[in-house]
């Protein structure tokens, strides 16, 4: 042999070259193996309780994923649970935009965590694809089952079986800066009662012309935010955004056009950077006292620093006296490939206990998921929280299997509509009907 080392070295280098030739633009590669999702309810459902606490607490490590926008409340609950139980929950925070992708990729690979807490609007899709374990019996065994907020449970119900529970309630409300109101000559104790008044208040604050301070905020690239904050106005007046099955959109009605017209007129009262705001920092302006009035998630009122003197108002409709809200937030379920279903149920049931809902959630200005705890000692102490809890009764959770692809997708049809309405042809855009039809096409699905 002439030089065996040279040949094997060349082979080794060739090997490394082949392996190392991974694309320089390494994308999060989705697995290509066919997913092996078991049909719903195939794995053993967690044992309903016999002891004081449902489920099993035996020191298992439970993995969980939750969304970034509801992370503060989730982390508080997890910390309190871990401190008082042998089980330890290991919660990973996932950026909102990545949630669909991450869950999809993990589902295809069979590597989902034990618990997933995700946006309630994604639950119809996930539940119908067999991602979660059937917990109908477990829910029924809870003593307070009838007082749980029904929206998230309905969203997670497929074929009569329930796969999810409400975890973190989020309602959309309006917040306003009382100091800016006073400066603009508006009464800080009289928030707007119609969308037109909201616009007038924003105009008044914008006219103050304070540097870096704006009347309102509209995140131009955050289409989920617009769903969360524009739709309640349509609902307040009795309108609808989709048909009951969630397969056709009705976002080009006259009511909708009136709402769009008002928001279009508000673009001049917003910061120039709002046009490309994708949602990561859409409340930062208000939290630094630089925005007069804007929509806001009710679950993170505690994130507004004490330096901002703020008030809360329910989102109003076009006519006076009408209010509504988007009942969103996270629903939570135990995944179908989890090996610790009993322990996971222990955690889930605990989060709905009196202690967790009052001492952790309500104490930190969160919204309890049980209606029997809506009036607790903490909520009574802060009238702003009372407003939020009261409007929950008038809100809706829209359900559609292809919700994400139609409304949250950055390249999706709802985004095309909102940007046309805000920055393009406006509320009277000739393309509105075509845009609505495009949304219907995605909702109807393939």
């Amino acid at each position, binding site marked *: 042999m002439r030089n065996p080392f040279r040949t094997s070295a060349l082979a080794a280098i060739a090997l490394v070259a082949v*392996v190392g030739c991974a694309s320089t633009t390494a994308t999060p590669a989705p697995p290509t193996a066919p997913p092996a999702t078991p049909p719903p309810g195939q794995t053993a459902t967690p044992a309903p309780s016999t002891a004081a606490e449902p489920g099993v607490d035996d020191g298992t490590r439970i993995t969980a994923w939750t969304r970034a926008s509801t992370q503060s409340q989730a982390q508080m609950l997890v910390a309190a649970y871990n401190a008082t139980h042998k089980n330890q929950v290991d919660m990973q925070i996932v950026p909102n935009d990545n949630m669909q992708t991450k869950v999809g990729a993990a589902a295809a690979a069979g590597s989902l965590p034990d618990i997933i807490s995700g946006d309630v609007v994604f639950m119809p899709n996930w539940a119908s694809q067999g991602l979660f374990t059937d917990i109908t019996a477990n829910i029924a065994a809870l003593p307070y089952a009838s007082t749980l907020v029904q929206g998230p449970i309905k969203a997670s119900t497929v074929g009569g079986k329930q796969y999810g529970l409400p975890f973190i309630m989020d309602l959309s409300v309006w917040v306003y800066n009382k100091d800016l109101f006073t400066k603009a000559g508006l009464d800080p104790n009289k928030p707007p009662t119609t969308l037109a008044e909201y616009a007038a208040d924003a105009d008044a604050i914008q006219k103050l012309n304070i540097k870096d301070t704006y009347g309102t905020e509209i995140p131009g690239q955050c289409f989920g935010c617009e769903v969360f904050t524009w739709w309640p106005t349509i609902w307040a007046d009795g309108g609808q955004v989709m048909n009951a099955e969630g397969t056709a959109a009705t976002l080009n009605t006259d009511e909708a056009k009136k709402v769009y017209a008002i928001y279009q007129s508000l673009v001049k009262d917003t910061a120039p950077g709002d046009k490309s705001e994708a949602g990561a920092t859409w409340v930062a*302006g208000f939290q630094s006292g630089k925005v007069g009035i804007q929509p806001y998630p009710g679950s993170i009122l505690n994130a507004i620093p004490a330096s901002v003197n703020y008030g809360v108002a329910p989102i109003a409709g076009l006519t006076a006296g009408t209010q509504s809200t988007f009942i969103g937030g996270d629903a939570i379920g135990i995944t179908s490939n989890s090996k610790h279903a009993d322990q996971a149920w222990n955690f889930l049931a605990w989060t709905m206990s009196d202690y967790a809902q009052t001492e952790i959630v309500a104490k930190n200005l969160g919204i309890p998921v049980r209606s029997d705890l809506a009036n607790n000692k903490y909520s009574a102490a802060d009238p702003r929280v009372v407003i939020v809890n009261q409007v929950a009764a008038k809100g809706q959770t829209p359900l559609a299997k292809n919700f994400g692809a139609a409304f949250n997708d950055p390249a999706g049809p709802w985004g095309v509509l909102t940007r046309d309405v805000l920055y393009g042809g406006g509320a009277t855009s000739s393309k509105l009907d075509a845009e609505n039809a495009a949304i219907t096409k995605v909702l109807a699905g393939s």
Partner: protein
Amino acid sequence: MGVEWSSAPASRSARQGGWWTTRRRSRQLMGLLYVAPTVIFVAVFFIAPLVLVANMSASHWTLLGGNKGLNLPDNYSAIQESSLFWPAVVFTIEYTVLATVMLIGLGLGLALLIQSGGVWKGFLRTAFLLPSAMGLASASLLFYGLYSNQIGPINPILETMRVTTSPIQFLEEPLSALWWTTFLIVWRFAGFYMLILLVGLQAIPRDVYESASIDGANRWDSFRFITIPLLRRSLALSLILCITGSMLAFDQFYILTQGGPDNSTVTIVELIYHYAFQSQNLGTAAALSVVLLGILLILNAIQFLSLRGAEEFR
């Protein structure tokens, strides 16, 4: 030992019995064994996925639901009908041309600068190469922060220095989004291409330049008639890497603009991602991947053929 690896065709007369044939066979076997790891790697990591993607592109395959049977050619016609497809192709080509011109031009300039020597040679070389230490996604996140309206430091600094009076909107408009994203790429990759071209430059012997200047050639002539032709191989390599990499652009656009504003910065790979994870349709995503593979094969074939002239030079 003097035994030839490359076997002359064994003539029947040379095959003298069992001993010789066994030795030849064992040599062949050794050869196969040496090549085996690479063959296995190529088969498992290259050919098998290719076959799988081709199969996926011909099937109705959803993200959460799995393979639901063949449906050729529905996926391919779905791509054709999509309103995002042709704009994505046009934009990707536009971006590829822009990025390639800037990267190779700047890379060559930097390489010439360093080649011409000077005290700062080592420092400059390190400075230009340093961005390569950062992953592309990390670099994109860094620039996302820099360009941000809420937390970016550039606008406040410029306004304090009185260079601008109103904030620069980096990613608001389609054209500025393209330029500022390309700026990120140039910052990140210029050093890399500078390195490739520098190696090529250093291989050019000095006496060629000396004899040229004796013959009366000026700087521009020696650049045009000596440097460029002798750099052909390095330029070919840079061109192929750059064009392929730019056609596959994803990270920077996904992180900085998410395809916006108004879907004006959607690249082909972003569209694949969109089909896979937003529309949850792996079949169409795979079909688009196959289309992209075809485009890249054609492009690279053209480049190989036209740049092959370098062979006769050596």
